[in-house]
């Protein structure tokens, strides 16, 4: 039964990823990527990771995809790409290199075929255990990621202020803003 659920979810994830790659419309690509993220969150449930299932839906499907859609619509980037290619051999070379990579990774993945892992404790990653580990053993990385997010926010604001202003008006705007 678990195998059936895994196969269906894996097919949905792969179909979403392939559709994202092949879609000429960037908004459709974002929606297909959303489908892929939801499929991966279902796989987290199968892998006994309930906390990550929720975090994946909230952060990836709920924030990152929304941000992508905002920027796509802001830039008007949903137009199809210009069919004119600079180098005609670029796309076939990219596909063949990706196929070689898949062969290598597939060989590594299937080299030691392991049976299904018998999970002794199904709640080894319950939210209480995650909180226990996150706030004791991994407290320092947790605080550092807080600084990282702060740096990202400040960086986004700086990038917005630095670009797109004419040299004459910049100081005037900053002066009147207190």
């Amino acid at each position, binding site marked *: 039964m*678990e*195998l059936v659920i*895994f196969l269906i979810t*894996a097919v949905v*994830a*792969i179909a979403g*990823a*392939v559709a*994202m*790659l092949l879609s000429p419309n*960037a908004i459709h*690509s*974002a929606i297909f*990527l959303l489908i*892929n993220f939801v499929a991966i969150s279902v*796989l*987290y449930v199968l*892998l006994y*990771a309930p906390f*990550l299932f929720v975090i*994946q839906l909230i952060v990836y499907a709920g924030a*990152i995809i929304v*941000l*992508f859609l905002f*920027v*796509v619509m802001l*830039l008007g*980037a949903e137009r199809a*790409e*210009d069919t004119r290619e600079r180098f005609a051999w*670029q796309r076939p070379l990219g*596909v063949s*290199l*990706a196929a070689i*990579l*898949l062969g290598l*990774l*597939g060989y*590594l*993945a299937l080299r*030691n*075929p*392991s*049976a*299904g*892992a018998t999970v002794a404790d199904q709640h*080894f*990653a319950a939210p209480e255990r*995650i909180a226990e*580990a996150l706030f004791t053993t*991994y407290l320092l990385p947790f605080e550092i*990621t807080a600084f990282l*997010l702060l740096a*990202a926010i400040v*960086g*986004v604001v700086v*990038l*917005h202020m630095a*670009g*797109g202003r004419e040299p004459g008006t910049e100081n005037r705007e900053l002066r009147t803003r207190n």
Partner: protein
Amino acid sequence: MVPTSYYILLSALLFTLGVAGVLIRRNALVLFMSVELMLNSANLALVTFAMARQDIAGQIVVFFVIVVAAAEVAVGLALLVAIFRTKQTTDVDEIHSLKG
């Protein structure tokens, strides 16, 4: 039970699709989405090994990877918007000012 190698194979396949997307697509936003797909495939591999070893550390690392990916998306999209302001295009083949 699902063998762990199935999960790893799925992770490898999704990673390869992300790599193919980065190499093939020219729209900068779809390129960025392919990078996010690669990050997700790595997260899937980490959670698989966390289950196989009954070790919660894999899932903690995935938590931090998700946070870092969110910060990266915010800054990366801000950069894209700033580039678009001057170039008026999202085609990465047109962004070649640093070319020697």
